[in-house]
């Protein structure tokens, strides 16, 4: 009956729940790939939609079939109780129903991703799942929803417009972040000279995304579990990451609860002991006297060589060189970072404080909103009346901006899909 619920027109209706169950039905296994490969590839196809939408998908192999939202299966000719016969090898390779099931024509030569000839099961599955979620055929170069199959180019992904199409149906990806930071490192270019490079990371609970500012999206295949990319930091998430980088120091610290860790870039793991002989994890109160714990978040400002620790409605400015709180601190966040527009201020309990090298600005994140801190040079030059470190709303007209309007497609996936 669910098939006939509501209007059935593409692009206007969608599932009303955000966690959807799927199953490759037992009598619908393909004869061409191992069952494990089939499930893995289909799981990856769901994960790819989950990476660009607020939807989560979970494979359900136990519930009674009527509780499974999306059923998938392979068949030939007349198949799986379906009224639409398949036509044999060539031409039609699959079909799908809105809010419903997906059928693959097992007379086609389906192959695993990037295995040369044959029809990529991954690409076909992503296309058909797009239909089930409510997307029609879309005639645009690069769209996965084009009706005809295009031989698989390596590294196939869901492009920008298809992302916007699915977000048009299900909304943007929103959510709080534990910390956001630019990880800076020295590398040697192909000419042997030392260059400074950075990458932007968003962390939430036990997983993280690398954000590619250049392409306005997260790295393909993210999020990844923390322990995969950052060895030794708490696997359930951190409160803050701070990179102290100046003439004398180059140290990355992760904070969680009352402790902190120092990260060893070269060996890509936390240090157990640092060059000064300190054992890790260390108490925050030892390494940063005067700073309370746990903290809400923190960032290091290269312009004044201070670490800004945020807790509740206070900010603790720590002078790294003096290894002590700067005089007069702690102070109210509203005093150090005053609102430019009256009342437009996060107040306290900041989720993340982030100095962005892309924007050359500091941002304060709270829930799904962010504020930009008045820059020392450009902003004050343009508008001298702006208070130092004032919190700018969105280009002065509307209140603070939504995070998903500046950093795009930072979407969760179901915990069961993290490993895919």
């Amino acid at each position, binding site marked *: 009956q669910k098939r006939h619920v509501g209007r059935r027109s593409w692009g206007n209706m969608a599932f009303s729940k955000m966690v959807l169950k799927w199953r490759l039905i037992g*009598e619908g296994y393909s004869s061409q790939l191992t069952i494990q490969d089939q499930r893995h590839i289909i799981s990856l196809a769901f994960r790819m939609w989950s990476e660009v939408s607020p939807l989560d998908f979970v494979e359900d192999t136990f519930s009674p079939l009527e509780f499974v939202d999306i059923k998938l299966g392979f068949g030939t000719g007349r198949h799986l109780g379906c009224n639409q016969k398949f036509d044999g090898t060539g031409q039609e390779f699959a079909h799908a129903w809105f809010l419903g099931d997906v059928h693959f024509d097992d007379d086609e030569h389906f192959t695993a991703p990037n295995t040369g000839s044959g029809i990529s099961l991954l690409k076909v599955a992503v*296309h058909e799942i797009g239909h089930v979620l409510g997307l029609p055929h879309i005639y645009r170069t690069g769209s996965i929803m084009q009706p005809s199959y295009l031989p698989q180019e390596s590294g196939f992904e869901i492009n920008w417009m298809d992302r916007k199409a699915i977000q048009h149906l299900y909304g943007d990806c929103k959510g709080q972040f534990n910390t956001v930071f630019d990880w800076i490192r020295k590398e040697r270019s192909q000419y042997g000279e030392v260059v400074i490079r950075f990458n932007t990371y968003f962390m939430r609970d036990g997983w993280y995304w690398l954000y590619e500012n250049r392409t306005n999206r997260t790295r393909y295949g993210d999020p990844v579990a923390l322990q995969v990319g950052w060895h030794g930091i708490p696997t359930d998430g951190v409160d803050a990451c701070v990179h102290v980088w100046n003439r004398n120091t180059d140290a990355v610290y992760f904070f969680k609860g009352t402790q902190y860790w120092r990260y060893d870039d070269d060996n890509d793991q936390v240090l157990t002991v640092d060059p000064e002989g300190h054992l890790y994890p260390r108490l925050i109160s030892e390494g940063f006297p005067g700073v309370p714990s746990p903290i809400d978040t923190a960032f290091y400002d290269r312009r004044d060589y201070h670490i800004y620790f945020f807790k509740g409605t206070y900010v603790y400015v720590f002078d790294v060189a003096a290894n002590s709180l700067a005089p007069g601190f702690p102070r109210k966040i509203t005093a150090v970072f005053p609102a430019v527009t009256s009342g437009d201020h996060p107040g306290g309990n900041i989720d993340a404080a982030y100095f962005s090298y892309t924007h050359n600005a500091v941002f304060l994140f709270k829930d799904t909103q962010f504020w930009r801190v008045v820059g020392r040079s450009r902003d004050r030059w343009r508008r001298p009346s702006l208070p130092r470190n004032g919190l700018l709303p969105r280009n002065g007209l509307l209140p603070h901006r939504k995070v998903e309007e500046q950093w795009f497609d930072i979407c969760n996936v179901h915990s069961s899909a993290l490993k895919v």
Partner: protein
Amino acid sequence: EKLFHSRDHSDLQIPSSHQAELITDKDTAELFLSRYGFIRPVNWEELQFDESTGIFNDEDFPGEEDLSGIQEGDSSLSRVDTDDDDDDEDSPNPTESQAFISALREFQKVSGLSVTGLFDDATKAAMNKPRCGVPDKETDDATDEVHNSTSSALGINTATSLTNNTDTSEDSNSTFSGVLNGSRR
């Protein structure tokens, strides 16, 4: 199993009965255009289930006698019993050929082909490419509108407003030249 002799199955022998019928002439082209809604929008959702099997459920999977159909492997393109099937094929009436030509032109347009209205080689090749079985144009029973499968149906705005952030910081005296490490899935 499908017969093969090479280890990599590259010589997989697909029985001809399992070959989809090629689209070679006006009749098969007309079936194609009809199947995917170019002649008349297809009421796709109504076509999912064979009423005799009701809502598909692996507990009540169709009985043995229904499995015979799989052996047929018949690849008739007649997805939808178009009610205007008439047996005097050889004397197409002018409106029908007009409908065929405009359907052909529509298919050529959305497929990025030159819109000739002729069943030319390029069109024939495009029709024989592997494709999804979901119609390109279908009706919606609630409003009987034809829903074209184009992005306009989704009201999608083209993403032109985005600035293209580069990873080199804007601050002129900054020493950063942000380059992202290769991003792989």
